[in-house]
């Protein structure tokens, strides 16, 4: 590769990064996420922009239910098979182990834990969310396939809870993610959580579990709110 080409590439890269910087001044990029060139084993040079190469660049689309009867049947199946993402975001997650163990045994009700967001339908936000976790929560949530549901536990998700004046935790979850069901308590007992799953099942069966579409519809608004508080937004807008 001639020097000219390299110079050209470098100037292109510079332009791209400047364009990014102009888009959002607050954005700062970690060293490993910066534009870089990698030498492949065969000697060719591969240009990598980690933030845009590794992810989908599409906006989320609304998935409208199509056939009413089929959808009703599927909703029944969805309500009876809720797979919960095993992401303990806050202290409420201490009440998850009792649920999957003999005393409360939520498997009876078709609720199971799942380790990866790709296979999960329900996200339990177990209490307070620090901004640092919120960033990961957004990514996990966006990776979950639609239809997906969010269960918010405790006071912290409703209005900040006892951390209302903390510089680190958000106050209102519904500003950043669409929430299906709130369960009161600090933290809610496992029984209340099971009641929350019951309510979620009812909502899904009635066809009201369409918050994923709401997220897609109001995508710009949610994104604006998220970006307002996540100061180092070093991830792409679309995480699908």
């Amino acid at each position: 590769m001639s020097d000219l080409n390299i110079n050209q590439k470098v100037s292109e890269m510079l332009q791209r990064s400047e364009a990014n910087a102009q888009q959002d001044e607050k954005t700062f990029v970690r060293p490993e996420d910066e534009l870089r060139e990698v030498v492949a084993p065969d000697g060719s040079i591969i240009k990598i922009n980690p933030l845009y190469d590794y992810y989908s660049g599409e906006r989320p689309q609304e998935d409208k239910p199509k056939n009413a009867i089929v959808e009703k049947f599927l909703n029944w199946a969805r309500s009876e098979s809720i797979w919960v993402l095993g992401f303990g975001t806050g202290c409420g997650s201490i009440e998850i182990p009792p649920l999957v163990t003999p005393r409360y045994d939520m498997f009876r009700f078709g609720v199971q834990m799942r380790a990866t967001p790709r296979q999960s339908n329900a996200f339990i936000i177990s209490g307070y969310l620090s901004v640092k976790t919120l960033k990961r929560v957004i990514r996990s949530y966006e990776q979950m396939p639609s239809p997906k549901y969010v269960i918010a536990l405790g006071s912290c998700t409703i209005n900040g809870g006892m951390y209302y004046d903390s510089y680190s935790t958000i106050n209102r979850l519904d500003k950043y993610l669409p929430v299906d069901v709130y369960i009161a308590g600090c933290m809610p007992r496992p029984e209340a959580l099971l009641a929350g799953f019951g309510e979620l099942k009812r909502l899904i069966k009635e066809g009201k579990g369409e918050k994923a579409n709401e997220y897609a519809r109001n995508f710009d608004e949610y994104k604006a709110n998220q970006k307002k508080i996540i100061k180092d937004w070093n991830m792409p807008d679309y995480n699908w």
Partner: protein
Amino acid sequence: MINSFLGFKPDRSLYPKTNAEGKLEIDLSSHQYTKLWLGPNHPGVTGNMAMELTLNGDEIVEGKTHVGYLHRGFEKLIERRLFVQGFPTSIRMCVAEPDTNEYLIAACTEELSGYDKQVPEMAKWLRMLSLEMARLQGLLRGVPGQAGTFSLGIGVQWGTYLRDLILDRFEELTGARVYHMYIIPGGVRGLLPDGFKDRMEDNLKEIDQFIIKIRKLIFNNAVFKTRAVGLGVITPKMVDQYGIVGTNARAAGVKRDVRKDNPYLFYDLLDFDPPTATEGDVYARTWVRWQELIQTVDLIRQIMAKMPEKGEIRAQMPNVLNWRIPQGETYVKLESGRGEYGLYYVTDGSDKPRRVNLRGPSYTHGIALLEDMLVNTNIADVHALMVSLQVCPPEIER
């Protein structure tokens, strides 16, 4: 094992070189290394913590822990709250054993305001009971949980069930399942309900059986031994170098227990001897914790036998809304299930604390020690190590 069996020496030629400063030179673009993030969204990591691992094959060449996902700024928030308001806030610093935080806040404020001599006897016994119950429920999760990290789930199922029974007792005694908010500055918030001791005794009998079952299941298990023996060794020399406390130190043969060394409450009235081991590996730590489980059951029995039937539960304190504490500073510690757990408390004469700093055992176990222990272990053992050190992330970042 395969290497030792086939007589191979591990091939270190691919390993990164250390430079003059003692740091590893890792060039990620050299295709030799993989960056792997374990957590925060990871079902195996206790709490909500991330480990940034650089891998060479299955082996870790560099590990960094990242905390702060559960950061709520307690120490800042408590500076804004009255002394009595600080206690519901502070107990959420560690969800695994919240009672320890309650006791520390109460003990610090009492000591600095000079009310520590006036705490009634009954309240002290009840404080001890709730602290030991908290240790018991922690161990009921922790001991089988260690096998759970190697995917032996049955013990976890039983243990969590029994922990739930203890939580039921907590609920009767304190009015809440997890965040009990029971030990209040000056005393405690309630007497034992009627028939509590009988129900507790029933639960303890079940736990006795569980202890035997768990020995057969875990400690006499060939595969568990294969995995745990020799993993994550802490030598006695490391104990002071890293500030290792609690069961982790005791499993390495260094007998340190705040209950014995600096007795608080009525611990010097109880008959017990903290268990120790010498190997210092994951197996030894689990073994020590299992023996501690036996001991805690015994301690609860002793406390229930020795405590008075009734009595005053709270000293007459100043009006909580107007309570001011003169300027001073103190450090109060106790032995939690994870080790020495202390609170550095500074007051400035106003009705709010000036500075509160929690020193949880995880602070050293979870960062400095864990990061150094991760090197040269297999990724499959990462979170077994983490659990065996009993790392509780919320207590690191608070």
